């Protein structure tokens, strides 16, 4: 089970989502993708999209206006 970090700091929509999409394609089932972002739209559109794709997802706010989104590839 690998853990991949993806730096999306200072990037606006839709780059975090596209980067996550690209990265997830290269990953194995059960791997965890950690997406770092400071764009508050990402915790809506990335999380919604990942749920729709059927993966497991959650996020936490680490600092003011900085989040980490955890995505576990499920299929």
């Amino acid at each position, binding site marked *: 089970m690998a*853990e991949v970090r993806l730096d999306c*700091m200072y990037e606006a929509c839709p*780059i975090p989502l596209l980067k996550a999409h690209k990265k997830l394609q290269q990953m194995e089932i059960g791997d*965890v993708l950690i997406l770092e972002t400071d764009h*508050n739209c990402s915790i*809506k559109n990335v999380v919604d999209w990942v749920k729709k794709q059927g993966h497991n997802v*959650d996020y936490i*706010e680490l600092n*003011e*206006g900085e989040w980490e989104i955890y995505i576990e590839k499920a299929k």
Partner: protein
Amino acid sequence: MSGKFILKKQNKSIYLFRYKRFVTQRKGGEVLKNHDRILKKPWPYMVGGSILAILNIILFILTDKVWRVTSGVVHLGAYVLEKIGLRPSEWYYFSQNTGEGLGTGEMFIYNPYIIMNAAIIVGALLSTLWASEFKWKRIKSGKQFVFALLGGFLMGYATRLSFGCNIGGYFSAIPSFSLHGWVFALFMFVGAWVGSKILIKYLLT
């Protein structure tokens, strides 16, 4: 060197802890406080969209004007150009009947949309402060800077050709039963498609 190593080791255990919490949260679920739900969590698109529509209707009833954004920006820009010695009021764009020209005794700076734009920025600032999400952002790379500038220029130029941005030319146009809003919508999707192709090819490395 050793300090750096310790930091890295600590980081690893933090991630492990967070991941464990992530798994347990997923199983148990978490009750959110109302404060968090209103100020921190992103609102559903339906709620945000409905509020924008209601506010636009109220604005139209009270002022006989619909919400526009780039109108204010272009007048602010023209005001700045006037201040540095140019005469934008004589330009073809402003002298023709495009709705952007000046009447007798009017000045570029006296445009209600400039105040609205300022209010939008103040409102956005307040909402990030309430959510404790305020953060100074910086430019990530030269490439991001160049593409952002180029994109901004293209968007600004195009709004003048299409009588507004996605607010004036689309969001306010369709409820006003104007055909140009639907034309705008159609080509906005074409533009988004082309834009995302460019983005994937050149910016996603």
